[in-house]
């Protein structure tokens, strides 16, 4: 046992796993702070930098493709939240449309440690799987290991500051409003309070998948202080979830609004 402890003490602290040069994409994992403290969330950033003409995917990949899958191995008492995805782009392929990123994108993940940590160092392991596509698709997988000292307060990591600022800037802005949606025949009708939305938004992304068909020019109507969105129900729609996420986009900036299911329209 003492031997193991001695060996562990020799492990260098590591706030950035070496970037993985995978086929057609470079994948990297960074931590926002260089140490961790009990009860203080640790933010990490998983970045995908695809080669020119290649792309990775949003949480709803659209007509084909696959969102990255993250599988964490964390010490007892730790929790990993769902990754936050940057505002996607619509990537047409023939008559099909995918949602994703044709340049570098970063998934932000909040890791929540327990309130109290006795150990001197913590080891965090991420098994990341992704799909990168151009005309062809190539799946990839990498394991990232991070090792961070436990301190009373988490120490900022100035070298990663701008990367995290950029990643947060790329997330759709979470607006403190909520709308509704309903399924009416072959259509999905979304109704959002629009006072805080720019009137020139042009793109709509819906998550999860299989709710609405991907469309490059969706039917958007601003009516007084509401935004009404009429989308074609997805051919593979099977069940309306209690809530969907509506991401609106204009020139790379996104706005995210939750829309709750309005059950009245369902029977039509």
């Amino acid at each position, binding site marked *: 046992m003492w031997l193991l402890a001695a060996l562990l003490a020799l492990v260098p602290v590591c706030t950035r796993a070496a970037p993985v040069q995978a086929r057609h994409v470079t994948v990297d994992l960074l931590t926002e702070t260089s140490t961790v403290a009990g009860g203080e969330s640790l933010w990490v950033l998983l970045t995908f930098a695809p080669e020119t003409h290649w792309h990775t995917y949003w949480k709803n990949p659209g007509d084909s493709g696959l969102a990255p899958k993250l599988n964490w191995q964390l010490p007892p008492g730790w929790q990993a939240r769902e990754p936050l995805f940057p505002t996607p782009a619509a990537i047409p392929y023939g008559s099909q449309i995918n949602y994703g990123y044709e340049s570098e994108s970063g998934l932000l993940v909040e890791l929540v440690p327990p309130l109290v940590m006795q150990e001197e160092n913590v080891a965090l392991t991420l098994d990341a799987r992704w799909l990168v596509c151009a005309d*062809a698709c190539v799946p990839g997988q990498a394991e990232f290991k991070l090792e961070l000292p436990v301190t009373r307060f988490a120490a900022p990591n100035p070298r990663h500051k701008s990367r995290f600022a950029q990643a947060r800037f790329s997330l759709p802005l979470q607006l403190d409003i909520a709308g509704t949606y309903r399924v009416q025949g072959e259509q999905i009708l979304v109704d959002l309070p629009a006072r805080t939305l720019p009137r020139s938004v042009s793109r709509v992304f819906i998550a999860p998948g299989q709710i609405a068909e991907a469309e490059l020019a969706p039917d958007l109507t601003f009516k007084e202080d509401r935004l009404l969105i009429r989308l074609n129900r997805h051919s593979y729609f*099977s069940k309306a979830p209690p809530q969907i996420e509506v991401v609106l986009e204009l020139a790379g900036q996104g706005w995210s609004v939750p829309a709750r299911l309005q059950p009245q329209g369902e029977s039509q």
Partner: protein
Amino acid sequence: MNRLLRVLLGVVLVFSAGLIQAAPKPGAMAPDFTATDTQGNTVTLSKLQGQYVVLEWTNHLCPFVQKHYGSGNMQALQKTYTDKGYRWYSIVSSAPGKQGNIDAAKANELTTSRGAAPSGVILDPSGAIGKLYDARTTPHMFILDPSGKLVYMGGIDSIPSADKGDLEAATNYVQAAFAELEAGKPVSTPVSAPYGCSVKY
């Protein structure tokens, strides 16, 4: 060469005269088509009535297809159901010059080398059959009941991934649908998310 020509001519489709086909929908009649498979046999869907039919969109270079062929999963399903007399057609809608576009000789070689057991492989380089079914991914599965109605359309299983390691935990929707159909029950999951590479139209 003669044979190749015949096959190429064969994929020129004969649609029901002037009928505009609606998008496929579970419970509705499946769109009909006539094509020639890579062995030179003419396949007309509406003439197959009385048997279950599986349509499988495929592209041998797509990693999602490789997951199901590399593990033997797809071949095992083909064998199980063709042994029961059901018909199973693998359809390649890759356009000329696009990934997965193959000729009849290559298709037959793939069937042999992979130990596949479909009733036939249909080449659809114009994408006409693919678009008729709005096939989006490889793989993408459709099941027709003996009356020609579509009873299932969507993914091959419940875990969208290119990892063979996920097969065991996944619910195979083709298997699940046939288990219910054979027990005289309706298919409880008639639609699921198709996942995979885009069809290379």
